């Protein structure tokens, strides 16, 4: 009975996830192929006008580049396209001919996931702890101060934070010496002289290079966690089961962990996945600012270079990453809150 509920819940969520991915995949196909002045038609036109190719030749070239057979019917093209997506085969990049799109993504995406994930996790841990403490210490003088800072941080755009951090750490020479971070040396994802792998030198170097993006994500997200957790904890603190736990003589630390903490985290945990998607999108600007070789910077390059296969691949992969993380968040939520499964169960 219980097991069934859980399995059913997971299957439902899984189907929902696949459905979302399929919808996005389809939308992308239609954007590329069917919209008026879509990239394929534009490319064909361009080739004919600029290079004087015949329609046949232009279409053949386009077919090759977009790995689509333009002579086939739209439905067949769509099915071939779906097949390619399932195999994660997005063809070759236009800008770097011969390099599969997937290879580029595989090289770039982990860096973005690393910085975004690290930053988000750090902001979550700091924000949750601070929020819970503030809720307990509502009567202290520093509560409005910290809350004020948190709401200020949550309201300024992340690229401003990035610029501020860049100046603070990389430009200003504190006390007449050198800036805190040698930012010219920190371009890229890691230095030339370390060997990628599971070794201390590499990990330290990667963290150094990712430091400013990670800090940016942390600082720009921490405010919202503080505010959410504070609100959620305050309402949990006044719940009957917390009051009764006190009357039952349960130790304050146990009340915090088993009664307040877990219940207060519930409404926030879904937010986590949403934020992840949000800042993966935001990485576009941040990675450009710090010249960080992640997926955001790659997408920017692909867009300005009109590298459609690459753009398409990145869009899809980003979608999949976001959808998977929200799937995981929902599972996590259901594990935390037994009422969720019950509601969905029947």
């Amino acid at each position, binding site marked *: 009975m219980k097991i069934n509920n859980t399995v059913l819940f997971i299957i439902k969520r899984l189907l929902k996830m696949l459905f979302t991915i399929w919808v996005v995949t389809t939308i992308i196909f239609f954007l590329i192929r069917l919209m008026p002045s879509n990239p394929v038609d534009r490319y064909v036109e361009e080739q004919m006008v600029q290079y004087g190719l015949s329609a046949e030749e232009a279409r053949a070239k386009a077919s090759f580049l977009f790995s689509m057979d333009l002579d086939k019917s739209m439905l067949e093209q769509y099915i071939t396209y779906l097949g390619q997506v399932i195999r994660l085969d997005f063809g070759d990049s236009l800008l770097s001919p011969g390099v599969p799109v997937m290879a580029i993504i595989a090289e770039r995406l982990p860096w973005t996931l690393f910085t975004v994930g690290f930053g988000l996790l750090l902001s979550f841990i700091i924000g949750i702890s601070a929020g819970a403490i503030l809720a307990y210490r509502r009567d202290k003088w520093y509560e409005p101060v910290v809350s004020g800072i948190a709401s200020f941080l949550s309201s300024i755009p992340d690229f401003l934070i990035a610029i501020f951090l860049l100046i603070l750490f990389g430009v200003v020479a504190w006390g007449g010496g050198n800036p805190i971070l040698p930012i010219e040396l920190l371009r890229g994802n890691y230095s030339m002289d370390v060997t990628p792998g599971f070794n201390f030198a590499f990990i330290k170097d990667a963290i150094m290079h990712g430091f400013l993006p990670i800090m940016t994500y942390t600082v720009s997200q921490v405010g919202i966690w503080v505010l959410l957790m504070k609100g959620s904890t305050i309402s949990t603190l006044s719940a009957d089961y917390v009051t009764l736990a006190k009357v039952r003589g349960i130790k304050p630390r146990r009340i915090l962990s088993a009664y307040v903490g877990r219940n207060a985290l519930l409404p926030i945990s879904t937010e986590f996945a949403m934020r992840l998607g949000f800042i993966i999108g935001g990485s576009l600007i941040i990675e450009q600012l710090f010249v960080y070789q992640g997926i955001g910077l790659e997408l920017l390059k692909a867009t300005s270079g009109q590298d459609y296969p690459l753009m398409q691949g990145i869009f899809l992969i980003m979608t999949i990453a976001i959808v998977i993380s929200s799937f995981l968040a929902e599972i996590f939520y259901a594990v935390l809150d037994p*009422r969720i499964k019950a509601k969905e169960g029947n």
Partner: protein
Amino acid sequence: MKNEKLLDIQNLSVSFKTKRGFLKAVNNASLTIHENESVALIGESGCGKTTLSTSIVDILPLGAMITDGKILYKDVDEKVLNLLELKKSKLRTLLWSKIAMMFQASQSSFNPVKKIRMDFIDTVKAHKPRMSEREIIKRSEELLKMVMLDANLVLNSYPHELSGGMKQRALLALSLLLEPKLIILDEPTTALDLLTQEKIVVLLNELKQQYGFSYLFITHDLSIVSELADVVVTMYAGRIIEKSPVKEFFKNTKHPYSLGLIKAIPKLSLDHTELFSIPGSPPDLVEDTIGCPFAPRCDRRLNRCSLEMPNMIPADNPHHEYACWNPNNGD
């Protein structure tokens, strides 16, 4: 013959800080609960019953302040402790092991993300860390059976899987878990059907005989009062206005307000079920009143009543006290 004092509330005053000013929810209230005694606290909604009882276990909501008074508790070694001045850590050892409480409308008293068994285990572990889980569960099962629940089912359920009445009974079982001296019950039977209500009242009586519990229970149901209470305490506008042994209370009611409450019981036996209700409504507790707070609604009002607040004075029966200038004398 009289048992010893267990809890002695002396001149307790509690105020809420509100936008309009201080709301005096409890005003100079004194109340004694003896060992193995069951005290019923009655009065209209908003007269301060919950505020009075929650101040005993230190869970007044934010914004509430105890402005005056003492709450004395006699511990096992005859030591008398003022609960209001006790260190938090010391108070915590008394809570639930000596004084347990069931909340009014206790629908969310269990942790929503844990099975009920965890609430039972947590409670014992907080006081007797050495007791094994097996023992705790065994004891819990006995108690749950006593309140007519399927023990196994309840222990392995989440709170949302139980009905309101089941939760209320499970909570009652939880409050018996450490065999406290005093159990505070804020409207313990409101979520229950009449039949279950009756069973719970019978059970509470049996438990009192068996374990020697004392109860402080709040109810709007005077039939439960007559079945369960040894002493009845009437509150009005934050003040205690009458205290009496239960028989004496119903036979020889002194305060016109208490009488009004008794008269307001629907009498089904009568042909025309005429429902009496006390005219008017309780005063605003933010404003200071000079005279008796009940005076504006009272049919026995004298001039003096609006000018001077009467003190509690004993009736013929010395255990019966009331605060009224013109008490009912059966005339």
